[in-house]
């Protein structure tokens, strides 16, 4: 039977959201292609996760091995390449996450298979996979295609497909032997560490003023700080501001920072890369200020202001002060 294969991603005993998103996408593809939806779960002592997965897949392949307790790209690569070689799925779906980024390219190289990364949507025919992805920092959409006649791999961006939620399948769980996992000792998982994030807790703020690379210089940060203060809000930022050590990590919004849901989020000079959007898209109201009318941030913002942030910041600050004084 034809098959759509989905890699179940989990960490510290919990299935990650991307897994349900991919199963939802996989289900759509499977229905269209009249294929079976199979998910592979490599891990150790994860039977309960397999049962959870069986509610949304036709078949769960549980590969249990002590050496699969924590994610390892080398071990996972062997598990998947063995399965893909024998089962020949039309397509294998992997999350475009820290796990998928580590795994998919090496896997594609080993199998000699085409790989489309960071896909937003997929269309499958007998012969071809077509995927939509973004390039140039999200300013351009690219439609890419590859053959799927000998199988293909796609990594899926987190947060773009909605999970089905309810039980849609009553799949079987099949326990399979892990491959020899030869040579994986050249790469060793040591431990998880949590980055020390002290300081402000931006997740508690009602109003966030967030700055991006558009702030241009460390010297300009006090201007944004004053605006935040005048509005009774908290200062946050995009990643480059933290990379440059202009603000501590505690201020960063996004996949590798914090997820925030303030009542209002004001983005100043932030382009709107998806890694940033993921962390703020559920804010109450989003107001974006950017010089570039085509900046992707305007696609998630409720209100857009196309201008120089240095012209806008002081005016809004005065306005806020005025309002507060009038009270």
């Amino acid at each position, binding site marked *: 039977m034809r098959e759509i294969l989905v890699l179940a991603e989990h960490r510290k005993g919990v299935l990650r959201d991307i897994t349900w998103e991919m199963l939802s996408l996989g289900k759509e593809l499977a229905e269209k292609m009249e294929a079976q939806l199979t998910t592979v779960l490599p891990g150790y002592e994860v039977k309960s996760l397999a049962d959870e997965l069986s509610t949304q897949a036709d078949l769960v392949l549980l590969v249990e091995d002590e050496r699969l307790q924590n994610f390892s790209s080398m071990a996972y690569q062997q598990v998947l390449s063995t399965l893909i070689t024998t089962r020949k799925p039309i397509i294998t779906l992997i999350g475009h996450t820290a796990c998928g980024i580590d795994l*998919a390219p*090496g896997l594609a190289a080993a199998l000699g298979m085409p790989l489309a990364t960071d896909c937003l949507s997929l269309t499958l025919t007998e012969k071809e996979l077509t995927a939509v992805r973004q390039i140039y920092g999200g300013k351009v959409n690219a439609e890419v295609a590859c053959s799927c006649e000998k199988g293909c791999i796609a990594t899926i961006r987190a947060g773009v497909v909605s999970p089905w939620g309810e039980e849609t399948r009553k799949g079987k769980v099949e326990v399979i032997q892990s491959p020899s996992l030869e040579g994986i000792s*050249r790469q060793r998982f040591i431990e998880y*560490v949590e980055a020390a994030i002290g300081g402000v807790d931006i997740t508690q703020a*009602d109003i966030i003023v967030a700055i991006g690379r558009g702030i241009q210089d460390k010297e300009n940060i006090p201007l944004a700080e004053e605006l935040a203060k005048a509005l009774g809000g908290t200062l946050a930022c995009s990643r480059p501001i933290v990379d440059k050590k202009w603000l501590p990590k505690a201020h960063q919004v996004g996949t590798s920072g914090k997820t925030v849901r303030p009542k209002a989020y004001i983005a100043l000079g932030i382009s709107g890369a998806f890694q940033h959007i993921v962390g703020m898209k559920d804010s109450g109201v989003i107001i974006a200020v950017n010089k570039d*009318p085509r900046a992707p941030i305007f696609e998630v913002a409720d209100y857009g202001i196309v201008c120089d942030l240095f012209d806008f910041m002081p005016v809004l600050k005065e306005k806020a002060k005025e309002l507060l004084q009038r009270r």
Partner: protein
Amino acid sequence: MDIIVCVKKVPDTREAELIITKDGKDIEKGELVCDINEWDRYAVEEAIRLKEELGGSVTAVAVTPDEDEDLLRKCLAMGADRAIMVKDESFRGSDAHVIATALHHIIKDLPFDLVFTGVQAEDDGYAQVGGILAGFLKVPHATLVTQIEVLERKVQVHRELEEALMEVVELDMPAVCTIQTGINEPRYVSIMGIRKAAKKEMKTLNTSDLGLTEEELGDSASKVKIKGLSLPPSGKGAEILKGSTGEIATKVASILKSKGVLA
């Protein structure tokens, strides 16, 4: 410690109005300013820091359809010892697989302990080349690296996962790491610095020097092909506020008030 670092030149598209080329497969790059890929700047810096600490050499390599000598000169000015550029028109439109194939051909005959790439290129955002290259070289790898410690014949690296979580992984050398931004503070290079580095060794090769065949190159060799580009419709999401800055600020204040945040 011999380190090879792969670098790419990318156009700065952040504030530019982008125009799609007639064939629909790329953007017009004529007017755009190009510079080293953000992630690669950190990768070069990390390589140089390790060399300064432990001795050895740093070689910068680039595969390109364009004249990217300035990119490599910049790497030399930052402190790389030598540079290799493989230039061939057929690299235009190549996918990550083809680029990694070419890089593999350059690197496989060089001595190395570590190969660095950036996590991803700002332009195509594939996040593939480093991982594929490690696969071709048959060496262990780690992506999204934010810290590297060199130990006896192995490295211990921090990989950035989601949120504030990281994992510590050990790799036997030789190994490939894809470097994440923020791992260090890249040094600034002056025009003077670039001039001074002019004497350093820079090799320009073509694809036949590498023994690459037609079938391994270019659009026809790419497994993933670009069918067409499009610009997302502008203003789809946001209501664009118009007027003087004063008028807009008043509007913003009333929006905030209506959300109950500016009482």
